[in-house]
């Protein structure tokens, strides 16, 4: 097992270098000079521009710049943001808990509803529960996310007044962000109603962000289950006289989980990169918005560093998924 983990970690090194080259090059391929953008509409003199370029090292040849960036990264130094003058590292970890909190809630929501829906659809294949669930999933998958978010806000926040419209917690509460996770901080603050308020604020963003993964997981579970249900070992399980619940929920599901876990892993990857639309609509201070603003202002260190950290997270999730494969189906561990 340890050997497997080390081996898998080894294979992430080339990926990591590849990602670093791509992020480094792509931000420089976008037209626009970060120094001029910082100066804004006033513009600046040619001498001052040249001086600033030299100060940030952007007058160096590309390979030299890349080398500085890479060696800085290896020392744990991701640079300083142009916009806020704060270290990229600090900025990232101030915002990331918000994204992580929302992503985890969204993925749990989509798993809890998606997997049972897929199982039910597979068991009743071709009958009305299957058709109802799968057409709903298709609608969920194809719906524009901002439109869906607005519908929910209009109905639940506007008409019914059940949930807040935006933000992470009601303005009535204030406490220092110790962990960055609003649920945990609110709980620990001990203020009455704070935890409840944090949950209320999470509901709609969770549903909105979880809708597409939910649809993908439900459809993937259905097709994986259909494949597994025709396997010989399912017939054996039935020949033992086991209950349908045990056959479907244990014997079939465990085998069907491999492709489902794969799509869950991929969904977690995209969610961690920040849900730009969802974060914008609900004024959620996560890294999605932060990344978009940094790209717009050509904030090279933030774009490079932020992307590297996100890529690192995604790689970690994939490593975890690979480990899960072997735990779910020991046959995979062998090959």
């Amino acid at each position: 097992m340890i050997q497997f983990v080390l081996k898998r970690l080894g294979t992430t090194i080339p990926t990591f270098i590849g990602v670093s080259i791509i992020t480094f090059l792509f931000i420089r391929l976008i037209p626009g000079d970060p120094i001029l953008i910082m100066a804004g509409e006033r513009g600046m003199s040619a001498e001052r521009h040249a001086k600033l370029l030299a100060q940030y090292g952007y007058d160096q040849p590309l390979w030299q710049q890349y080398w500085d960036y890479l060696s800085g990264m290896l020392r744990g130094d991701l640079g300083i943001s142009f916009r806020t003058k704060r270290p990229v590292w600090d900025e990232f970890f101030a915002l990331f808990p918000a994204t992580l909190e929302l992503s985890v809630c969204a993925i749990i929501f989509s798993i809890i509803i998606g997997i049972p829906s897929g199982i039910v659809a597979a068991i009743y294949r071709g009958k009305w529960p299957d058709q109802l669930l799968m057409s709903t999933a298709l609608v969920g998958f194809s719906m524009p996310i901002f439109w869906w978010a607005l519908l929910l806000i209009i109905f639940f926040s506007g008409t019914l007044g059940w949930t807040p419209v935006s933000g992470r917690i009601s303005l009535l509460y204030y406490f220092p962000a110790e962990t960055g996770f609003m649920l945990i901080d609110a709980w620990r603050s001990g203020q009455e109603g704070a935890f409840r308020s944090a949950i209320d604020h999470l509901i709609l963003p969770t549903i909105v962000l979880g809708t597409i993964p939910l649809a993908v997981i439900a459809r993937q579970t259905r097709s994986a289950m259909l494949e597994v249900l025709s396997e010989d070992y399912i017939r054996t399980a039935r020949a033992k006289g086991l209950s349908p619940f045990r056959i479907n929920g244990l014997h079939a599901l465990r085998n069907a989980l491999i492709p489902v876990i794969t799509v869950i892993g991929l969904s977690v990857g995209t969610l961690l990169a920040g849900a730009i639309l969802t974060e914008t609509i609900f004024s959620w201070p996560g890294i999605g918005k932060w990344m978009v603003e940094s790209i717009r202002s050509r904030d090279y260190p933030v774009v490079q560093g932020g992307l590297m950290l996100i890529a690192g997270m995604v790689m970690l999730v994939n490593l975890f998924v690979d480990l899960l494969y072997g735990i779910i189906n020991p046959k995979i561990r062998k090959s």
Partner: protein
Amino acid sequence: MALLEVNNLTVEFKTSQGPFRAVDSIDVAVGANDVLAIVGESGSGKSVSMLAVMGLLPWTATVTADSMMFNGVDLAGLDSKQRRDIVGKDMSMIFQEPMSSLNPCFTVGFQLREALKAHLPLSRRERKHRAVELLEMVGIPEPTKRLGAFPHQLSGGMNQRVMIAMAIACKPKLLIADEPTTALDVTIQAQILELLLELNQQHDMALVLITHDMGVVAETAQRVSVQYAGQKVEEQSVEALFATPRHPYTHALLAALPERATGKMLPSIPGVVPGQFDRPSGCLFSPRCEFATELCVKEVPIANSDDPTSVRCHYPLGKSASVA
């Protein structure tokens, strides 16, 4: 009274091209402690008829029968819960592909204990003890250690032994073995058959052996039922069948045995079993039968169900046609 007595069993599958009759009014009777072999080519409905008895057919299948008595109970009259209480306990089945018939995600021990848990009121410790005992009974070395093994860590023969252990876990009265040795090496085949016969004799367990291998039939069975294209064409004791096959199909099957061949070329039956769209109007075997006449093409032969020696043929063969 027989342990299993099925009358006029018919199984139809819904297909996109209309219904397909895989089993056509078959009678099966197995006495306690009997060994019945069901033989026939691929597509003759051997497995389907037994899967119907077990209640393991997919939802696309429609099973009808005049009666399906097992151990004094009419299986057709049971709801699915009552059926599950019998299946896997009093009546169990093993399959052709041992490697794919065990769940790759669970250990052998888990799958074995699960079969016990489903039907017997044993404690955890008793189940484990019984699992070891069962593996020992089917001849698996180091049974305690094997309980923790996954199916992919065992050979095909070992997996089939595990399947057998699972099937006999609750001391069934009837074991249906669906081509249990087809996927195994010849040496392992003999061992598995020997094991099945041993269980049959020592544990008062009737055995239905589905096979297309006449050699296996000769070595194991007491009675033989020959099926063709979903119909039973004849049933005899094994000695009588090999000595005097009465149906031309049985005759042709026996003539195709390599050990009985006299010429340079092995004899074979021309053509294939009719499928969904090329079913002949008269006797189903008539297009391939060397004795067929106009009557065979026109009229369906019916076996007299009161006469056990009766066969589904207009011109049953007598002693003179013996190929021994």
